[in-house]
């Protein structure tokens, strides 16, 4: 190829690229929603395209890591109008978001939601769209009642037989880790033993070589012996139990042809009811479009598919996870801890600082 041809080719590519930018610029601002969500938000592009065709509102989704990333980005960009909606802020972060005053009210009819979805918050600043419980899962291949006994309380994990066998996520960097950490605070505050609290348990677990990872993926995929991670590159599989969702075994079964060795641990009060919200952000003036989108997200047609779209329970009344391929059969609906978002918001910084020092 001579130099002239190369230059012409470069110009064609650049012009085509620029023309793409121009086309995009034709969409009017009023009919375009900019949404900030977590990485794992599972609504497909086809569904969003269908929404655009039906309403004339186009949607652009920006991914910001996990639930914490959504909160922090929403706070950092408050009042700028960069984002119209946030998707995925959960009730462990909701207090922080509410105190930062980053939400505007929505007009969604709240009577359509299940009582479980409105447990933590039933106002109009944050609308629930899905939920699940965060709890410990164990691998029944190893935790079979003979070699290792199935735990009846969280204290059982401090037994030497569990040394280095439980993987949890860092509560400062992972939303599931944070949810489980909050559950332990409430669990040990309300158990029969008034002499000990969550700090004592975490210190005991530290002595028992607890595996702490920065995110859910490393804990579940790399360390947990009972999950799909065993088929992935770099699998270690040294943990027989992991903090995940109580319906994670159900998702495993769904993709594993109704087969999994993973089981959700049923210990009363040792799980956290995680409820995820969609919110209209301060600084946006697209109230009509925002309400239309939220109504679509919590509509029966879309919300009832949450168990296979977003791998969570639907938030609407009567919504449930699918029974297909043992999904529901392998999932557990536990008795969750009961802790309010205001209590979390007031104490979480102190709890986390104490945890940080205790685990060093």
């Amino acid at each position, binding site marked *: 190829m001579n130099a002239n041809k190369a230059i012409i080719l470069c110009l064609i590519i650049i012009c085509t690229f620029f023309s793409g930018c121009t086309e995009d610029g034709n969409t009017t601002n009023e009919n375009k929603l900019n949404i900030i969500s977590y990485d794992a938000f599972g609504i497909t592009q086809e569904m969003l395209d269908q929404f655009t065709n039906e309403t004339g509102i186009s949607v652009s989704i920006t991914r*910001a890591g996990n639930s914490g990333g959504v909160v922090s980005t929403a706070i950092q960009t408050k009042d700028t109008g960069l984002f119209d909606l946030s998707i995925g802020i959960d009730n462990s972060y909701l207090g922080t978001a509410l105190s930062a005053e980053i939400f505007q009210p929505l007009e969604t009819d709240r009577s359509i939601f299940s009582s479980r979805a409105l447990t933590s918050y039933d106002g109009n600043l944050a609308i629930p769209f899905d939920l699940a419980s965060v709890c410990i899962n164990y691998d029944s291949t190893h935790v079979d009642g003979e070699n290792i006994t199935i735990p009846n309380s969280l204290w059982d994990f401090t037994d030497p037989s569990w040394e280095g066998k439980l993987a949890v996520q860092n509560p400062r960097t992972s939303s599931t880790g944070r949810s489980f950490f909050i559950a332990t605070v409430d669990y040990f505050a309300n158990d029969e033993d008034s002499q000990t609290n969550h700090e004592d348990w975490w210190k005991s677990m530290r002595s028992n070589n607890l595996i702490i*990872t920065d995110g859910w993926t490393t804990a579940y995929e790399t360390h947990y012996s009972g999950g799909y991670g065993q088929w992935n590159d770099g699998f270690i599989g040294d943990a027989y139990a992991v903090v995940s969702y109580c319906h994670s075994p159900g998702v*495993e079964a769904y993709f594993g042809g109704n087969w999994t060795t993973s089981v959700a641990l049923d210990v009363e009060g040792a799980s956290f009811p995680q409820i995820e919200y969609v919110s209209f952000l301060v600084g946006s003036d697209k109230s009509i479009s925002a309400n239309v989108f939220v109504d679509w997200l919590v509509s029966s047609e879309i919300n009832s598919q949450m168990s296979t779209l977003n791998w969570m329970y639907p938030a609407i009344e009567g919504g449930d996870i699918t029974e297909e391929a043992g999904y529901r059969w392998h999932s557990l609906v536990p008795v969750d801890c009961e802790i309010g978002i205001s209590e979390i918001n007031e104490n979480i910084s102190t709890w986390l600082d104490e945890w940080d020092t205790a685990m060093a």
Partner: protein
Amino acid sequence: MKIRYIIIIIWAILVLAPLFLAWSHLHSISERSIFQVISDFNQRFQTKDSISYTFLVASLSTILTLIIGIPLAWNLGRYNWRYHNILRGIFTVPFVMPSILVAMGFLALLDWIDILIEHNHSSNIRFYSLLFAHAWFNLALVIRFCEPLLSTIDSSYEEACRLLPRGKTPKSRMINFWFPLMWPNIAASAALVFVFSFTSFALVKFITPSQRNLEVVMSNQAEWAGLDIPSLGRSPSEIVLASSTIQLITIVTALLLSSWLQSRSSGHHLSTMRDQRKPMSFFSKRGFYLIIMLFFIISPMIALITSSFTIRENNMMVFSLQGWEAAFGGSHSPTNVYQSLFSSIGYAFMTMLLSLPIGYFLSDTIFNLEKTNSKLAMLLDVLVMVPLALSAVMVGLGVLLGLIRTNPDLARSWWIPLYGHLMLTTPFVVRVLLPAMRNLNPQLEEAASLLGAGYIKRLISIRIKLLSPSLIVASSLVFAISIGEFGASWVVLRFTEFTTLPVMIGDLLSRPGYDPILRSAANAAGTILLLITLILFISVERFRPVGSGGDF
């Protein structure tokens, strides 16, 4: 004001402004001094052992890279092999591979090793794997810094050395002739290997997930850093401020050292500027060694490619094209490979158009300053390289603060990601062009000037013509780095709608992998990226000027 000074000022603002904004904002939030925070590092889980781990990994990775890289550079520099350019392309391409793909390749490799020797992925094996991954990644630096000089040293010097008492054995010649000749190049490459190992993120995060270096620590704290909200506490801001300060001081010191050593390297006069390599066959001890090294380089690549053709089905891994279908069809991601590749190529071309002239003027200024004010030249050289030392967390925070304070709508502009690409590629343009400029014969331009040729005429007829091989090499390097760039893109690209190929891969990998297609689709997209980069690198190797002075 001359255009070159305007470019220097713009560059300084682009590099330093986000850093200053982020630093001053974090400082205003922090309650404790940096020294107090650092002294508290080992008392907290989030930061425990991170400083020592960072230095340990960077130091050992540097040593291992030199152990592997110097013999390789020697064999490529002193001997001419069949398919030499292809070999050189393959050996240097790892440097521009997205680190997330390298991590995936090495993790796949670990599984192969696991079949051969039962090691159960112990933490020791993981640690050694990390060191080898860093060596694999940075090998190109040692080759690029040493091989050009080695290839142009006249063999008669070594022959003469043989006659002297201290040059009779290969070992004594190595100590008394080659090492004194080569050490500035070796040390300069070592300084840069140290820099890249020190700031490594994806490799540390994926290969040794139970350990944290400073970059991982900062990434973990990133989302809460800079937020002044009581329920979040101030420690994230304090940790990021302290970590980035340690990182910046360490890296700038290493870059200063590297720059000083490179300027020393350009002063020796034994280079003939002609190819002095001897022909060598693969059917020899050296050939066998080269084949082993080739195997070392391509193993993670092959592991990555084969992973794209396998998928989990009924609890076993089977051959499948579903990952490729998902990657090209876009069924599991917001865009498909075609659209992402198109965006990547568009950004890479535009980066090239901006980076080459900026890099040229920066190189030209450094080159001219070296003759009049060597200290200032060294400082400017370091300023050019500083973007490679900055944490993506600090840059991202600085850019965000800057945009929010000026015009938030700009954050969504399609051209904003070019900033990240420009920052990462321009230093390499300078690293390619500067040594080529040092090797130009100044008399040619002086003669042209005496004959009445103006600056533009001299630039086009002499400079650009003589530098054209280096410009082609720089262009390919910019293109390859830009097309595979993930970190900086993510920092500043996330508000725009243009999903590049590395961002698409990151998106696929960031979701829970219950769905078996996700990982295969990411590997398929990664394979496309790998092959494009490899073809690009190999095809431009023939333009690389012989003995371009011992630099990148």
